[in-house]
């Protein structure tokens, strides 16, 4: 797949403060690319430089082979943007609002079809202030699609939404991906990135600290899965430590906790061991590593501050 976005040595400085520090990444056509990181990591600044909203201090950004600095208007006409907490005009109903935004791109749109796309067709007569939080976010996606963009930028589209509205939004984003659009999304929900993204860049303190597919991130991070269980009969802990792929074994209250780099190897051996030790296992739980754990391991801090 060709790259639709190329970011090279991108840097943003506000006086002495470096908000984005020499980052590089590429986004493939048709994928969902996630930028993760805690508040203040530089995600939004990165996005806004790519969108042509913030001047670039240093570095290059190419969108569909167009240089953002030199072809700002052309880039803006092929991208769709949802800003963090963006609001819209009060005095227009949703249909009029979409038609007005179409005028900004100097084109005509089927406003009702766009609203149907985000399941707001029943609300076309309503004003923005009458919408719920989730509906507002869906509207801003519809507005972002007004120019049938090649790339859609979503800046924390699910922040502040309840779980149901968040799942709705995930379905919508997946549907837009299926329509062949490239999506760049920022979030601080790890779960969201795991569900939606083909590639993830994790940012912290203005830098990209790692970048890969969610699967590889989990596998290569060295963060293992946890296996916890209890036994009806005491077993020496060395027995568990010797199991394949186990990196750590500790005994807790009435059971054990194993850390494994590969549960597929550990689990069969564990069940085999059961026979050897003549102890019965119960309450067995396997907890797989999450991106949250990866992040914790990479930065030493919680993602949500």
């Amino acid at each position, binding site marked *: 797949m060709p790259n639709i976005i190329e970011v090279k040595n991108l840097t943003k400085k*506000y*006086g002495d403060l470096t908000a984005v520090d020499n980052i590089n990444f590429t986004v493939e056509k048709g994928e969902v690319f996630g930028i993760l990181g805690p508040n203040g990591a530089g995600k939004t600044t990165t996005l806004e430089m790519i*969108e*042509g*909203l913030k*001047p670039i201090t240093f570095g290059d950004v190419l969108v569909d082979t167009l240089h953002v600095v030199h072809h700002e*208007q*052309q880039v*803006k*006409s092929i*991208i769709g*943007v949802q*800003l963090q*907490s*963006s*609001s*819209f*005009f*009060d*005095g*227009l109903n949703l249909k*009029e609002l979409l*038609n*007005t*935004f179409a*005028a*900004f*791109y*100097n084109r005509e749109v089927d406003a009702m079809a766009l609203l149907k796309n985000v399941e707001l067709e029943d609300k076309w007569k309503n004003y923005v202030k009458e919408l719920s939080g989730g509906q507002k976010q869906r509207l801003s996606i519809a507005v972002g699609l007004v*120019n049938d963009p090649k790339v859609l930028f979503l800046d924390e589209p699910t922040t502040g939404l309840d779980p149901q509205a968040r799942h709705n939004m995930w379905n919508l984003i997946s549907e837009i991906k299926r329509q062949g659009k490239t999506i760049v999304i920022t979030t601080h929900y790890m779960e969201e990135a795991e569900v939606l993204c083909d590639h993830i860049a994790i940012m912290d303190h203005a830098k990209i600290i790692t970048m890969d597919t969610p699967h590889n991130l989990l596998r290569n991070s060295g963060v293992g899965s946890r296996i916890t269980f209890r036994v009806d009969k005491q077993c020496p802990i060395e027995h568990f430590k010797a199991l394949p792929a186990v990196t750590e074994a500790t005994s807790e209250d009435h059971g054990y906790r194993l850390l494994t780099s590969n549960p597929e190897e550990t689990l069969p051996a564990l069940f085999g061991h059961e026979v050897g030790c003549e102890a019965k296992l119960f309450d067995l739980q396997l907890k797989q590593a999450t991106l949250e754990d990866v992040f914790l391991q990479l930065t030493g801090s919680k993602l949500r501050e």
Partner: protein
Amino acid sequence: MKTVLKLTVSVFKMFIRNKQSLFFALFMPVVIMTIFGLIGFDRVPQTNVGLVATNPSSATQQFIDQIKGISAFDVTTGNLADETAALNKGDRAVVIEIPDNLIPNPTATTPPVKQTVTILQNVGQAQQAGTAISIMNQLLDKTRLAIANAPDLFDLQVQDVNAHNSKYIDFLLPGIAAMAVMQMAIFSVAFVFADYKEKGILKRLLATPMKPYQFVAAQVIVRLLMALAQTAILIILGALLYHVHVVGSYALILLIAILGGVMFLGLGFTISGIAKTVEAVPAIANLVAFPMLFLSGIFFPTSGMPAWLQHAVNYLPLTHFASAMREVMANGAGLSDIASNMYWMIGWSVVLVTLAVITFGFEEKRV
């Protein structure tokens, strides 16, 4: 151009759906004009006259009815004690005590006895009291001559001439029109754009390929149309309610409204450029607009002000806007008659629009 046209339609919808801007643009000026027009500062107030007559003869009663018919008098009849009390409270300018047999019976054979009319005068309302006293004097003189059968040597003929008398409403209406345009231009722009900026709407617009001037052009067009509508509505209402007659050229009036609109739109954009938050807008806007409302000769002529103040208010943009409107509407002035007002307005427009260009922007200040 097509974009600007479409945006103009959208902006127009937003403007007329915004209750607040409609209130300030149309409702308030109409209310102010109606109220001040009703008060009618040019109507001569009636003189409150108390009449005391206990048991007047029929001839005297005729005389009393004559007094009651005088349009400058608001006559109350009562007994001496009540009327004196009313006078003491300041509710009467004069109390006139009429003897019962003031006017002799025409059929009586005996020669009339000299009668005394007593007038109690409220010195606090000396002017009205003086008028009342001189009217009473004339009335008594006329009656005396009539009774004495003196030959009628003089005839006073009064003819109606329809002179163009500037009434207060003729003074007020052009000023209110100028005020309305100013309020609309400053407040609707400053509030709306400060709000757009604070909510991040302008930033969202910057993410589209539209040029900011296209959006600003649509906003300006809608407000200039509003300025014309305001002027037209006030003139129509003035004609319907108060029979205001516009003497000068309507085309010139519209030109002045547009120029005034441009001038104060410049101020509105400047204020929204300066204001950091929506809350700061009314503070700054009122600081600028409020003094002008009272100093620029909207409600009362500036000629009553001390000389130094008259000199100072002559620098204010609204003074020239209102004055140009008034000269054309009430006095039928032509473009050359109001040239100095127009130069002032053009000068202010250049200054304010330049300030707007410097201070106002869609973008956050670039670091």
